[in-house]
């Protein structure tokens, strides 16, 4: 039972931080299907910098996690600039831009990974090996029945994500910047009339979403996949988008959606394992999170409402 909670959380939280990124962008009025691309490119930059530093200074790659995390956030942000410029300056269709960025990220990172591996390290590998991060347990709290599992075998990044998520919540709902950002997605003209630069706020929002996606991607790379390769593009970005639409573009319900994904995923694996079924049966249980989501959406979608100006190109002259 404990493993369900432990594995579920370690999957749900990186997903959650990516979904928050998506919320920021979409609340400001920019459709963001590019989360997957930001995640992948961020993780690529993070992994590359960790590998290079480890190689140059001979440090253990485990200790470089925080450095990698920082670089991943920067990497995701840099890649997000493309989406921001295309959508805001070049007035491109935001859905198109998102899909293109995903494709470009996948192509570019696999190409660069193999190229760098052969040029710098002289190996014909298509991945950067990172290993799984060390976990820790809070001794007193871990003894509480059931809930104790939350404090057992925790990845350090889970703590970081929670802290950043709380800050992101505060920024979005309690500050002037957050209010303006949300207003940009509902009625950009009134924001403009109030003397605030809509484009600037939208740029910031998209960059934040890139930063958070890069963070999420790096966490996946250091836990589930233990390396950086093209296999990091597992559709987690789309799952995060599903979570935020499910959560009605609000941070707390989105957390619930992500936890649902996480626990249904680890729960499915757990049931298959405890019933000692052949491995092919695991596949059947893997559909759990997706089926549950679809069923729940049937009940909850009626009241779902996207930000009003979402996906619309802001044109000052148009009223």
């Amino acid at each position: 039972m404990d493993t369900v909670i432990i594995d579920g959380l370690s999957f749900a939280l990186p997903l959650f931080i990516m979904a928050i990124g998506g919320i920021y962008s979409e609340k400001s009025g920019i459709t963001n299907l590019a989360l997957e691309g930001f995640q992948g490119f961020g993780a690529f930059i993070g992994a590359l910098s960790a590998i290079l530093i480890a190689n140059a200074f001979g440090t253990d790659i485990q200790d470089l996690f925080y450095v990698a995390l920082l670089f991943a956030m920067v990497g995701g942000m840099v890649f997000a600039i493309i989406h921001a410029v295309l959508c805001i300056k070049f007035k491109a269709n935001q859905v198109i831009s998102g899909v293109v960025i995903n494709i470009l990220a996948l192509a570019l990172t696999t190409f660069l990974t193999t190229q760098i591996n052969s040029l710098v390290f002289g190996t014909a590998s298509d991945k950067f090996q990172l290993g799984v991060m060390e976990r820790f347990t809070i001794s007193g709290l871990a003894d509480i029945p059931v809930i104790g599992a939350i404090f057992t075998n925790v990845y350090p990044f889970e703590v970081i994500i929670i802290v950043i998520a709380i800050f992101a919540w505060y920024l979005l709902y309690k500050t002037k910047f957050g209010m303006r950002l949300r207003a940009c997605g509902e009625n950009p003209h009134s924001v403009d009339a109030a003397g605030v630069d809509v484009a600037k706020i939208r740029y910031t929002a998209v960059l934040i979403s890139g930063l958070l996606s890069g963070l999420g991607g790096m966490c996946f790379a250091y836990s589930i996949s233990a390396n950086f390769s093209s296999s990091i593009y597992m559709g987690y970005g789309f799952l995060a988008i599903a979570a935020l639409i499910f959560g009605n573009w609000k941070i707390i319900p989105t957390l619930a959606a992500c936890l649902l994904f996480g626990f249904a995923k680890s729960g499915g694996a757990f049931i298959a394992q405890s019933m000692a079924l052949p491995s092919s049966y695991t596949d059947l249980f893997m559909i759990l999170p997706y089926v549950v989501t679809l069923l729940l959406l049937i009940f909850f979608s009626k009241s779902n409402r996207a930000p009003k100006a979402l996906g619309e190109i802001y044109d000052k002259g148009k009223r």
Partner: protein
Amino acid sequence: MSKDNKNINLRNRLIRLMRKEKWQSISIPLVAIIMSFIAAAIVILLIGKNPLQAFCNLFQGAGILPKPSYAGYKSMLTDFMSLLNAMTPLLFASLAVAVAFRAGLFNIGVAGQMLVSGFFATIIVGYSGLDAIIAKPLVLLIGIIAGGLMGGLVGWLKYKFNINEVVSTIMLNYIAQYIISFFIQMYYINPVSRQSQYISEAARLTLVNVEVGDLKMDIPLGFVLAIITAILIKYVMDKTVVGFDIKAVGSNRNAAKYSGINVGRNTVLAMVISGSLAGLAGVTYYLGYYASIQPKVLSDIGFDSIAVALLGNSHPIGVIFSSSLISIIDQGSTYMSSQAGIRQEISSVIVGLILLFSACGVYMKYKISCMSEKVEERKESKS
């Protein structure tokens, strides 16, 4: 006339050429393609290779240009037929995305719809031992029905429960992938290849290793059908009431509703059409290009098609051109990588760049109209 004046004249003429609305649907993608090849050339130069040779190899590999030498039973024609074979499912899938996009819907579920149709066609016809005359049309029919039903489900969920089609198609993709993987691994697995058992030759939509003269080539039967379908879709979209209604719903839901168009029905209908096209992509892929299904893998075509449809301006004829371009780059990349010593992955980078530049099409249009206005103004002030 001074050199400066000449330049301005040239520029004006170029702007006038680009300004023509009729040509913009061609000229803008063309500019995007040229720009991306220039960008790719710079990348290839940076790794110290010759870009011209690389591009030449790319076209040679795809069967557009002749290679210096061929193995027995092979020629440029056989390479070209392989290109068409690979292109067929992509063309169908891109048409699927394009139709949905015209209705304002975003079908990310093409991969799932392909897999479901391919799976049903495989187990019902592929393993049945039916005669080719019956088997081949039946495969197509199953593809249309299975894909159409799945697409229709997405449309119905949207109309009935307001479920965003992006979310439902993503969920259905995963569900299809895992359930079908389960059935393949339980009942239809080939222990050697770790894929589903190969289907019978009679059910296959590509004729493999046919001897024509002294050549052995693969003939994709679906290709002709795909071209006919594209033209048919163009006709339906441009000339019929159904097409008009779908486009009206796509361009403005509320306006369509007020003018008495049944939005719900058209949403479902558009998704049924889109799904059945995806189903055709599925059967031409799993029972044409391949003869088996790999468990737990969704085909890349499902996602590439989104981009290809957008590159083709969601226009059926445009999609024919965009999917051939992307297929040429994909098909040629193996030969390029072996000949020029450039990694195969660069081809996907080129594709990504093409798409990136073409995404700026609206901006280009806007810039051109700005520039041409300026030219007109100057002309007026002179006279």
